[in-house]
């Protein structure tokens, strides 16, 4: 078993990882500021150090279903790729 850092999308169904970083960037910003996607992810509880379990993903390269902090979220694949997690394999 060794620890590896991979994007969330690389997890197999049912696998759990610990978030190391989120590289969604701050975006070009909305007209009245705001932090865009990264801030939103943080607000939904996807902060570094948090355990995330991938349940499954929707067909046709659709969003991921994940479990985080006791609730179930749907996460677009595009942003899931920018969340990096540490797994033991």
């Amino acid at each position, binding site marked *: 078993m060794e620890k590896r850092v991979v994007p969330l999308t690389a997890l197999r169904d049912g696998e759990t990882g610990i978030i190391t970083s989120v590289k969604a960037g701050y975006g070009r910003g909305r007209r009245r500021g705001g*932090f865009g996607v990264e801030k939103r992810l943080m*607000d939904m509880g996807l902060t*570094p150090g948090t355990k995330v379990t991938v349940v499954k993903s*929707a067909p*046709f390269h659709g*969003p991921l279903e994940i479990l985080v902090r*006791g*609730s179930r979220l749907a996460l677009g694949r595009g942003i899931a790729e920018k969340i990096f997690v540490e797994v033991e394999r």
Partner: protein
Amino acid sequence: MSKGKLLIALAGNANVGKSVIFNYLTGLHQHIGNWPGKTVEKAEGTLHFKGYTIDIIDLPGIYSLSTYSLEELISRRYIAVEKPDVVINVVDASILERNLYFTLQLMELETPMVIALNQMDVASRKGIRIDVDKLERLLGVPVIPTVAVKGVGIFRLLEKAIEVVEEKHIVKHAPIRFGLEIEERILKLTKMVENLKLQYPSRYVAIKLLEGDEEVKEEVLRLNPEIVAVAKKLAEEIEKIHGHSCSTVIVAERYEIAGRIAREVQTLVPSIKPKLEERLHNLTTHKVAGYAIMAFSLLTIFYSVFTIGGYVSDLLNELFYTVEPFFYNLLGVGAVGKLIWSIIEGVIAGITIALPYIVPFYIILYFLEDSGYLSRIAFLMDNIMHKIGLHGKAFIPLILGYGCNVPACLGCRIMETERERILAVFVTTLVPCAARTVIILGLVGKYLGIGYALALYIFNLAIVFILGRLAFKTLPGEPTALIMEMHDYKWPHLKTVLKQTWFRLFEFIKIAFPLIILGSFAIKLIEVFGLLELVALALSPITVAWLGLPLITGVTLIFGVLRKELTLIMLATLLETENFTEVPGFGPIQMVVFTIVTMFYIPCISTIAALVKEIGWRKALFITVFEILFAVMLGGLAFRILTLISIK
């Protein structure tokens, strides 16, 4: 004995039962409108309790008080500026950690508050026991356990809220402290901003400055730019210590606190109920069964809304038009009679569209949303919808648009951000509704064959796709990626669903009826004064010269603004024939061009009203004008291309 007025705000995450509590408290004394100058819905209600007249505001369901969305900004400003006497924070007991994250932010705003620990029944079914007293102690905020759908605890909640106001005690929330290295810097900033007289509490401003909150930063920048520079430096220091951006560190710590409190007050016991919700979730998001169930549900919904709607609509129509002869007997068929009848006709049009289609659609939509199925459909469809730049949730209004654009546009309310809502309504207005289908099938399908009608449908889909993508690319703002909670399935609270339907319907009627009546009156005015020919002539540069259509179509296109199917019906009436092939100058090409123009040229007047309700006057007008120009351009091009092809 009247003790005066109170202002209570309800705040909390989405889907925690906030609107159920709101409906429970306010009954039929509510008003649903928009926040001034915004397209975010504002629900207000009044209630009399213990001698007080209490105004209740239901703030939008949100997960945070940052500036991610307009909803968050509005809620935050409302609490800080309007200073409600007390905020009732509705918390889902079954997802305590996430909900407490929001609670902690409310506490940072230093507002007097009471927590409604809702869905206690769901929590206990999931095997979660909560020590309410301990939670109260840890937060320093009164906590009342509730089961809103059954009305349990609501009375006590209200009593507690009043108690908090009457005691007038200075807010004494338990101190929520971040890590030492952050606290130090918050303290430093707090001292600096104390004299600025901002609408937010000083500590809150300090925290937000460290988080890099744009709104707060801008405000402080105006008063004292030096502080912002200091805050930036302090934030960088924190970033160096932790290796993550300062805002990430603060959010993570806040979540840590929320998690710690949740773990301290929760005891987990084996859940009593077999996980029916879980199985239902797995089934409805399954890669095969999920789509099958979705297709079946949507077909059922579509079919029932439009058969029931159609039936009721026809019935009402017939009923109303039996009055027509009596009416003309009474007032005569002169100009005055005709004009007054046009007003009545407008009302009839409004009623026959609004009631039969919008009512069942609203009910079903709220049902889907409250139960949690809507988020599963969004999950399944998100990827496909993203190709036209839409959120997965937009699939439902879009599909319903094939029946009638009016409820479909109103349904775009479910979109989370304004940008998504504008995109969704725009695309929805391009979808051929039942009335446009009548024209496609009744003209092209009947005279040119079903293949051509189908081709037009496919053409429409292509246009929807292209324009959708174009709008997606050009509309300012960041495209929102899907980050959506899929809460556990639950049985919707029927009373809340019905009340939501009723008040939103009422809101629509207020906008739509004057518009429809005005439109119908204006057109009748033109007709009565014999100006139809003149209008047709005035439009001839477009209709005849550019589109290659017969002169008379100018008139029918005007009538189509009221109801799209009128374009065809009027054509038959004006030409005094049901067989359009006999009409000179109205060959296959003209039929196709005419259909293309009707398909896109303007959302009908009821749809415009729905647009106004959802995205405001300016944007509604913009979409309308754009679609007129677009349809005319497209029709003209089609005419030339088709002529070219047929010559060869």
